[in-house]
């Protein structure tokens, strides 16, 4: 009698977890914006046997955004999942993998992300600031003020904005705009930039130095701006940030 087909894989089987981990590393390694995502749940797994030691695996994954920017060299295992009250962001991914002679490779992947609903956040935390659109005028104003503030005080390289990662606005009891944005060092010192900022260009990939800034601008009851920028130092492509060699938009 022909051998019975193998029992369908469970979503928490070690083989499923290994495939999911491979898929999540691929997704983070090929994303150029925002933050790294961590696995929250394997929604489904379907295995299609193609022949001896040749399988196609379809995964549906439920991911959660972490606090690590995509350019950060921090290993995913050390990245904290953004908490519910920080206004979490969920990613839903469909990934098609091939397992040939025991070796996994990603054939195709499609993801979309969405923030948790404001109602959910406010139900648990009525005064929590909520995510706002990245082109909100208050957000753009705070990012500009924060970057100018950093560049006016640093003795290091003049930093340029790469992208705004996230922004939240709290309206009461105080009015605070909180922003996070990715930056890159230029070929100027902050002092040189004062004379001719147009000449300050991003460093070439083989010398690139990316970083990340967080800022909070209190508008009411009093004006206050707090800025913290950290540069990662020059990074060579790693499994955690493999796309560095392809540059960033």
């Amino acid at each position: 009698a022909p051998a019975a087909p193998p029992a369908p894989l469970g979503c928490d089987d070690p083989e499923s977890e290994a495939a999911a981990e491979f898929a999540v590393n691929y997704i983070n390694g090929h994303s150029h914006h925002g933050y790294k995502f961590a696995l929250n749940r394997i929604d489904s797994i379907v295995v299609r046997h193609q022949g001896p030691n040749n399988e196609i695996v379809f995964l549906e994954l439920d991911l959660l955004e972490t606090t690590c920017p995509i350019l950060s060299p921090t290993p995913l295992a050390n990245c904290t999942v953004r908490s519910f009250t920080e206004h979490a962001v969920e990613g839903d991914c469909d990934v098609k993998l091939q397992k040939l002679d025991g070796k996994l490779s990603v054939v195709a992947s499609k993801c979309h992300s969405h923030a948790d609903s404001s109602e959910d956040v406010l139900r648990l935390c009525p005064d929590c600031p909520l995510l706002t659109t990245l082109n909100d005028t208050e957000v753009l104003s705070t990012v500009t003020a924060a970057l100018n503030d950093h560049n006016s005080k640093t003795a290091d390289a003049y930093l340029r904005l790469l992208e705004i990662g996230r922004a939240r606005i709290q309206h009461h009891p105080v009015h605070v705009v909180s922003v996070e944005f990715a930056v890159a060092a230029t070929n100027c010192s902050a002092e040189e930039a004062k004379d001719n900022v147009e000449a300050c260009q991003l460093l070439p990939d083989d010398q690139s130095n990316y970083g990340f800034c967080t800022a909070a601008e209190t508008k009411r009851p009093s004006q206050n701006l707090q800025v913290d920028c950290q540069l990662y130092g020059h990074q060579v492509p790693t499994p955690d940030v493999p796309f560095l060699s392809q540059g960033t938009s």
Partner: protein
Amino acid sequence: AVAKRAVAEAAQHDKVPRPVGFVPPPPPCPGRIRHFKI
């Protein structure tokens, strides 16, 4: 009504008696939640 009743009775008879303390295995998917569900 007759059909429903018949089906309900038939289903009742078909039900395989389960040993006392039988715990059905968890469904294979979706898997466990590692952080929280939004």
